[in-house]
């Protein structure tokens, strides 16, 4: 007999998976193809251990040890003329390797070249701050800490940058649910009203397509508006669209087009 599989959430799963699909790979070429990159790589290799290096989409990628990150970037800034740190962040490979990949995207204005420096750290490992070399690293490292929980050493102001200070969890980790864990889903209720208000307010409605025609607490039907909470299971009255009450408003006169005068001679 075939094993039973629950069918009630079948719509939520992709119904088709291509077993033969292979993720497209960007072609890598050897560093020796580009004279500028080859010279840069030699300069880095002279002082630090380089685990891997290749050219991808006209940019050199250099993989180094995480403990060398400050030294390599300092060398690139001071001696190799890579004078801009344009991007810095982490990639979550915790599921497959148990590691974070940290990348630093460097730009040289004079050489018109870009180098990406990569290194890998463990989940609990911290990494040296680059904010004394590049001011742009300051906020990027705070964002990296905020989103991934990568702790930065020697950072001048190690604090969350986007999420609230009392937030729990790191939202850009692959294990973090898009719609938030329990802490996130009750965050504003817990903070403003306290945990005891959870029952009064109720859980979030995360189904944007949910419509209950008879629920007048949450839904209104255009042209059939009734006060909140009215029972309309027996039908509801037609409510014509009106801008003012039928019998007029105190001290306010309705505009009567019949009585109005159209001025035709503009020179008057």
């Amino acid at each position, binding site marked *: 007999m075939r094993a039973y599989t629950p069918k009630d959430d079948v719509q939520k799963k992709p119904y088709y998976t291509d077993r033969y699909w292979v993720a497209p790979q960007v072609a890598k070429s050897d560093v020796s193809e580009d004279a500028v990159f080859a010279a840069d790589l030699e300069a880095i290799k002279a002082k630090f251990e380089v685990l891997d290096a290749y050219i991808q989409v006209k940019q050199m990628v250099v993989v180094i040890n995480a403990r060398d990150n400050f030294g390599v970037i300092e060398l690139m800034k001071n001696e190799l003329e890579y004078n801009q740190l344009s991007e810095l962040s982490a990639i979550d490979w915790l599921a497959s390797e148990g590691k974070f990949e940290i990348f630093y995207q460097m730009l040289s204005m004079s050489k018109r070249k870009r180098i990406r420096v990569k290194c890998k750290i463990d989940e609990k490992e911290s990494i040296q701050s680059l904010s004394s070399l590049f001011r742009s690293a300051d906020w990027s490292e705070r964002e990296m800490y905020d989103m991934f929980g990568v702790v930065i050493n020697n950072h001048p102001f190690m604090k969350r940058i986007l*999420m609230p200070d009392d937030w729990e969890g790191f939202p850009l980790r692959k294990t973090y649910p898009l719609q938030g864990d329990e802490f996130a889903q009750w965050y504003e209720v817990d*903070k403003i009203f306290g945990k005891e208000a959870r029952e009064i307010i109720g859980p979030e409605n995360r189904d944007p397509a949910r419509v209950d025609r008879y629920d007048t607490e949450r839904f209104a039907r255009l042209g059939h508006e009734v006060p909140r909470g009215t029972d309309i299971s027996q039908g509801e009255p037609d409510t014509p669209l009106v801008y*003012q009450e039928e019998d007029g408003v105190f001290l306010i006169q309705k505009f009567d087009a019949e009585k109005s005068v159209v001025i035709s001679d503009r020179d008057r």
Partner: protein
Amino acid sequence: MAQHQVNYLKDGGLPVALTTIDKVVNWGRSNSIWALTYGLACCGIEMMASGASRYDFDRFGTIFRASPRQAELMVVAGTLTKKHAEFIRRLYDQMTEPKWVISMGSCANTGGMFNTYATVQGVDRVIPVDLYLPGCAPRPETLQYGVMLLQQKIRRESASRAQKPKRLM
């Protein structure tokens, strides 16, 4: 004997109008709804357009105020993030009674397309809402109509109702 009868209660008789306190107070309230400047996202642009000369909120007596203490209407125009939720509640608490809230646009109503960890799924989880405006973003006409509906709601209420705190949400 008088040859004519003066009907004091009719228009054009004497400058006398008989009415109730409720109606006078509500007339004042409904025609001077001062709104808190509270644009959170792109709906805020539509709210600004409503206040500017083409749609001209001033003719309804709706004037945007920068202080919650001078405002009685909060138009939540845009996405409310969870980080900001405590501040919207604080601003709402600072507004003086009576106060009303218009939730403007999909994001304020239900979180809209931001079905994520960082967005409050409807401002009514934090503050009580009187009027929900659909749209992404609602046009200024929608906001105008919403304010006119709110005026009707204010005129229906009893002016001297007890200042009891509103429901939690």
